[in-house]
């Protein structure tokens, strides 16, 4: 392999200059940053809708019912399709994966760039509807309401359809990258757990997303020409739509969760200075979860009219997801045992993850069990549950990864003190917002409600207050990270003293990542 000799001070950020060098870049690191920037923008959009929803529910009466229905639809659609699904794989994975396996790039850099533009196209198409008739179906687009509604639903459906291809191509790219571009000596046994997580996620992306694509396509045609597959007025079956939809959308939540779990598996060993507890079990559990993910979609439909037998089977299978997930949580905590813990921001976010994700996971049991699900489904209990797992896993994992890789991405260090405050604000804000919603749901407040009976007022007000805390936390995070970008201290190449090969590069790395292809001679967590 030839040795790359880069001019001193040259890195992937300044190697080529000008807008054109970014728009047409094939460098996975630049593409990762482009995704990161775009996703931070869509996250802001989704967050604004969340604040609006919470303001309405907090009693400020700022919009009509029709506007409210659009607000929560946009919040959900943007957050699911434009934020949490691509968040870690596209923004962090694209940046880190090749470096983690000692490669110079992903297998198909041009497909990688195309993925980004496909994502942007789909997102723009969906966002355009904000200026048209909007969309008010909820992110789940249940038929027949989604067929009849006179809003711009078809544009959003097609936007999501297009974004799906971005997800598929990213998954395809990662699978081939992990198979074919591992550096010499990097056996499967030495593969970092974040790579295992991205691998399992990619398998889900590749197998599940096409089914969503055909579902959205069929729904759009049903709206346009009335093919009669979902609309009961012309002989179709609306529950069939739910089966098709959830067949993708349940595995989709593992596209959100697994990469985040992978990040936690990387961060805890580095900041405990000891190996991950039970490496093989975690890798196996990751694939176990990915497999079972495809078998449990019916647990979203326990009261839909599905047969009692189907309910029995889906509930039983859903229970099996809890076991490998529990194994992972125990392993992460056990990794802390007799470690030498360094309380940097990534580890603090890992702790937040453990707290929030565990609560989310346990409340999942309430919904997986048939009896309790009957009362709790379609209430705020479900809203709280999925925010705990989605935000708990994906968002906390993302924040951990962002703080972990920030020095590598930008060559600058952020203020640890500011990061601790941001973490605290976000964590407190999150719990104040969403924990009351478990109680609201148990008390019987249904979801997607513009207005509610007076009994539910106090907890709603509390939840709205929490949303302001989260917002403050994110604004604070943006401020200190922005400050670090501009005026932060120069980062050493390996500030966390990590052992994985991605940290054996400059901060920021040169375009080719490594001057010579590394040869791996030991595992990723051998902190002796």
């Amino acid at each position, binding site marked *: *392999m030839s040795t790359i000799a880069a001019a001193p001070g040259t890195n992937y950020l300044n190697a080529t200059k000008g807008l054109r060098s970014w728009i047409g870049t094939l460098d996975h690191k630049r593409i990762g940053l482009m995704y990161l920037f775009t996703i931070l923008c869509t996250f802001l959009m989704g967050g604004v809708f969340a604040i609006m929803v919470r303001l309405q529910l907090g009693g400020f009466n700022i919009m009509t019912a029709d506007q409210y229905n659009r607000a929560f639809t946009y919040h959900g659609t943007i957050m699911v399709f434009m934020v949490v699904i691509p968040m870690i794989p596209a923004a962090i994975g694209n940046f880190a994966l*090749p470096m983690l396996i000692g*490669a*110079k*790039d*992903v*297998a*198909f*850099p041009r*497909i990688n760039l195309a993925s980004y533009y496909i994502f942007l196209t789909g997102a723009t198409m969906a966002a355009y509807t904000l200026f048209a008739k909007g969309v008010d179906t909820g992110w789940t687009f249940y038929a027949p309401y989604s067929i009849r509604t006179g809003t711009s639903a078809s544009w959003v459906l097609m936007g999501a359809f297009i974004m799906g291809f971005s997800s*598929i191509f990213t998954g*395809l*790219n990662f*699978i*081939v990258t992990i*198979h*074919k*571009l591992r550096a010499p000596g990097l056996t499967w046994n030495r593969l970092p757990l974040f790579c295992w997580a991205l691998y399992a996620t990619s398998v889900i992306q*590749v*197998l*599940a*997303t*096409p*089914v969503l*694509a*055909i*579902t959205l396509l*069929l729904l759009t*045609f*049903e709206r346009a*020409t*009335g*093919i*009669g*597959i979902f609309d009961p007025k*012309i*002989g*179709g079956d609306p529950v*069939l739509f739910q089966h*098709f939809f959830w067949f993708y959308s349940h595995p989709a939540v593992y596209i959100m969760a697994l990469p985040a779990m992978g990040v936690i598996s990387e961060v805890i060993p580095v900041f405990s200075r000891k190996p991950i507890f039970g490496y093989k079990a975690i890798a196996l559990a990751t694939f176990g979860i990915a497999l079972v993910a495809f078998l449990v979609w019916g647990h979203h439909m326990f009261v839909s009219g599905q047969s009692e037998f189907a309910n029995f089977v889906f509930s039983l299978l859903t229970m099996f997801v809890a076991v490998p997930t529990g194994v992972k949580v125990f392993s992460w905590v056990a990794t802390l045992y007799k470690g030498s813990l360094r309380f940097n921001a990534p580890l603090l976010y890992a702790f937040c993850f453990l707290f929030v994700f565990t609560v989310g996971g346990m409340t999942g049991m309430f919904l997986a069990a048939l009896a309790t699900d009957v009362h709790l489904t379609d209430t705020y209990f479900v809203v709280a549950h999925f925010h705990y797992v989605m935000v708990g896993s994906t968002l906390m994992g993302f924040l951990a990864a962002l703080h972990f890789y920030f020095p590598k991405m930008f060559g600058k260090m952020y203020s640890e003190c500011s990061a601790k405050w941001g973490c605290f604000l976000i964590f407190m804000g999150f719990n104040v917002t969403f924990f009351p919603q478990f109680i609201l749901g148990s008390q019987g407040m249904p979801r997607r409600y513009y207005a509610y009976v007076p009994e539910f007022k106090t907890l709603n007000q509390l939840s709205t207050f929490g949303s302001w805390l989260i917002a403050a936390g994110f604004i604070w995070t943006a401020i200190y990270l922005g400050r670090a970008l501009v005026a932060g201290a120069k980062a050493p190449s390996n500030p966390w003293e990590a052992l994985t090969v991605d940290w054996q590069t400059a901060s920021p790395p040169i375009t*080719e990542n490594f001057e010579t292809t590394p040869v791996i001679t030991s595992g990723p967590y051998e902190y002796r």
Partner: protein
Amino acid sequence: MSTDTHTHHFAHHFESADHELEASKEGMWVFLLTEVLFFGGLFCAYAIFRSMYPEMFHEAHKYLNWKLGALNTVILITSSLTMAMAVSACQKAQRNKAIVNLILTFLLACGFLVVKSFEYAHKIHEGLLPGALFHNHEIVHPKAPLFFSIYFGTTGLHGFHVICGMIVILWLLFRTIRGDFDKGYFMPVELVGLYWHFVDLVWIFLFPLLYLVS
């Protein structure tokens, strides 16, 4: 035709041209797997509705011309053969043979689309259209529009894949004429060949499911 062995320039993150070829083939296989899932959703809808309305499927399928369907099957299988021969010709650096076979594949695909357009024209004329557009008076069963929704959905999606394949084959033809391929490098032809065989395979499933409902 070039006889000297020029090393093909492969992307910087691969170790050799062979490495790139292996990775690219794997990528194409994964892509075809996603296509299986994509068509799979439609096949699933077919299976569900056929099990719900078996007599309707039997009655409605009689309005499809199985002879034209069989002709199209033969056309596509032949095009797969010519495609395979084009790949083999590129492998052996037989440029003229490769060009001829690529042109044949393209023409056969055109033939497939021509037959398809006759079939579609007939359906449109008879009012045998999907869902709410259906206005045929011979078929009595109220769910018949569903059959035609599935017919147009599956063959339409398949036809779209044929058209995409044809565009790519034209591009391959252009590159072959330009002399891009030789013994050491024919990766794009091989990858498109894989895609084309998949498109053929989907039709081989569609034909009996739609045209030969017993």
